């Protein structure tokens, strides 16, 4: 994203290329620094970006809540989900399947990836390190991250992968003089809200969800009360992993996936989770919006510091509230 300004601090032209490659419908000459349509554009960018961030962070925070382990391999789930979704998209075009399937395929990809990697991680690693030193626990997930990083390079190569059929299919929408893709403006936030509401309902309203909540409160007591903690942790990793992969799958039609994208998303979702408070679902939502919006506004107002914004917010919040924005002193974590 490049924003050039003339001497009178007027936007001369906007050239969008990297992060949001589909916004190029917006090209205007000589507009004031922050008029209504630019504001709307930044707002929409921010919301759609926040939706993706939130999905990934939600998975991370859920896994932390139950396992008390910060899963560094979560970024790889984002990357694998995205790559796998792109592959499925290519398969659909290649075999001439109806293009209608492209959108559901994103969810299928995320679910398969989440179940597969979540199961492998849980049974091969996390289940076996629960009684180990926290440093070693963190390191094991870092090792899993390293392994997955190379595996995805082996499977999908180093060329950028980018399949945008879904977005073009859904067409665009005009709001406040800005043309924006329906996919980013409506679908992404809708999925994020659904995930938020759905997870809330699952945790509070179903028997299994309450078991999950019980394990986050106190693992041993939950076991003593007859909760199958093994099943709960497996479920958590699968659901959390699927959410991470869903973030990747939904991002795949709008961003090109290259090696290293998992590492980048990892720190961003860390930032969201830490800002919101570890294990806080509502906190993650607010933090994702904060970080997403400030980043997209920074793109238009102060493009130099755009990449810094998430970390500055995180440092700022942690300095004032060391436990994050929404972590209550009470035991309730999810």
């Amino acid at each position, binding site marked *: 994203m490049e924003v050039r300004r003339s001497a009178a601090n007027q936007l001369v032209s906007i050239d969008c290329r990297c992060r949001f490659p589909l916004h190029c419908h917006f090209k205007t000459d000589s507009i004031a620094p922050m008029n209504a349509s630019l504001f709307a554009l930044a707002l929409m960018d921010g919301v759609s970006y926040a939706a993706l961030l939130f999905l990934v962070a939600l998975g991370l925070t859920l896994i932390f809540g139950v396992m008390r382990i910060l899963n560094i391999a979560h970024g790889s789930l984002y990357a694998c989900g995205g790559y796998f979704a792109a592959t499925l998209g290519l398969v659909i075009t290649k075999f001439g399947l109806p293009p209608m399937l492209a959108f559901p395929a994103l969810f299928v990809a995320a679910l398969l990836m989440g179940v597969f990697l979540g199961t492998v991680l849980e049974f091969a690693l996390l289940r076996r390190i629960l009684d*180990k*030193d926290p440093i070693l626990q963190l390191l094991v997930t870092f*090792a899993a991250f*390293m392994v997955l990083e190379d595996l995805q390079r082996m499977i999908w190569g180093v060329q950028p992968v980018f399949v945008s059929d879904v977005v073009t299919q859904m067409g665009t929408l005009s709001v406040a003089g800005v043309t924006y893709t329906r996919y980013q403006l409506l679908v992404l936030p809708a999925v994020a809200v659904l995930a938020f509401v759905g997870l809330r309902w699952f945790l509070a309203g179903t028997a299994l969800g309450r078991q999950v909540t019980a394990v986050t409160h106190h693992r041993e007591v939950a076991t003593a009360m007859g909760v199958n903690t093994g099943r709960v942790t497996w479920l958590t990793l699968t659901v959390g992993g699927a959410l991470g992969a869903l973030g990747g799958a939904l991002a795949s039609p709008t961003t090109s996936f290259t090696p290293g994208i998992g590492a980048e998303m990892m720190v961003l979702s860390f930032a969201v989770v830490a800002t919101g408070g570890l294990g806080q679902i509502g906190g993650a939502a607010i933090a994702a919006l904060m970080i997403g919006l400030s980043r997209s506004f920074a793109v238009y107002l102060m493009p130099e510091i755009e990449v*810094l914004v998430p970390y500055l917010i995180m440092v700022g919040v*942690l300095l004032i509230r060391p436990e994050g924005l929404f972590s209550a002193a009470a035991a309730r974590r999810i």
Partner: protein
Amino acid sequence: MRLRLLVVVLAVAVLALGLFFPWVKTPVLVALANGLAVSGVIVLIRAGQVSFGNAMFACLAGYGTAFMAREWQLDALLLIALSCVLAALAGAIIGFFIVRYRGIFFGMLNLALSMVLFSVLGKFGAVTGGTDGLRFDRPTLAFVHFEREGFETALLVLALVLSIGAGWVVQRYFASVSGQALAAIKTNETRLEYLGISAKRVFWGGYVLAATLCGLGGSLFALTQGLVTPEMGYWVRSGELVFVAILGGSGHALGAFIGAFVYEFMKLYAAALLTGAWQLVMGLVLIVMVFVAPKGVFGMIERHLRSRSKA
């Protein structure tokens, strides 16, 4: 006693390796530089804290070295010393507020700060050379102008001396009152406070020492390469430092250097034998280590030495 012998033997072996097999000189230098940074990480691990951002001090010192070499054409010894001061100052300032945090928040705050540095270095290309980094000419070493070959040999000797010195300092620190208090932060911080010792102040000291050692490693790394890039401060680099600490064994400063050598050479071989899969190999090794020998290579050596001295 046996340990001292081991250090001497290892130091001689490293020196011989560097002198007789010139092609391994660079990996040996990189390993020593990494070992220095990892010995800083070990100080933090002693307090039960793990930082996913300590590479920022190495990165900072590396850039300091590059800047001073470009602007003022200083001598390599002076470059190292000034870069260490820079890292120590940064550690002291960051330490002021970061010592209040423990566990994951400590790690994450370090991570966030290191990402700020990483992004700034990549973004302000006019000053920092952007993502391509900064290149600088080979400086004089002890006011002698060396050719490439001689410079590397001299640097190797210097690195070895610095490593042994740093290892000795770290071990002395662990044995001192502050070092013992630092270990108590891991076991029981509340009791430490009850003894009338400020945990924050103790941890601050450890943090500054860690930052300085990382800076020393970073400066040496920059001199070895003649190039610094923002990647030096990326969070994955910080993770690797922690990885090497666990691999080598965090119980003793020697573990840092053993780990760094094992890491460097495994990386070299894995990269040569299985192209593009060294991370995979390293990841698997780390997982196996955590399950089989959580005290690292040094832990295994130590156990061996103990059982021998008993028999």
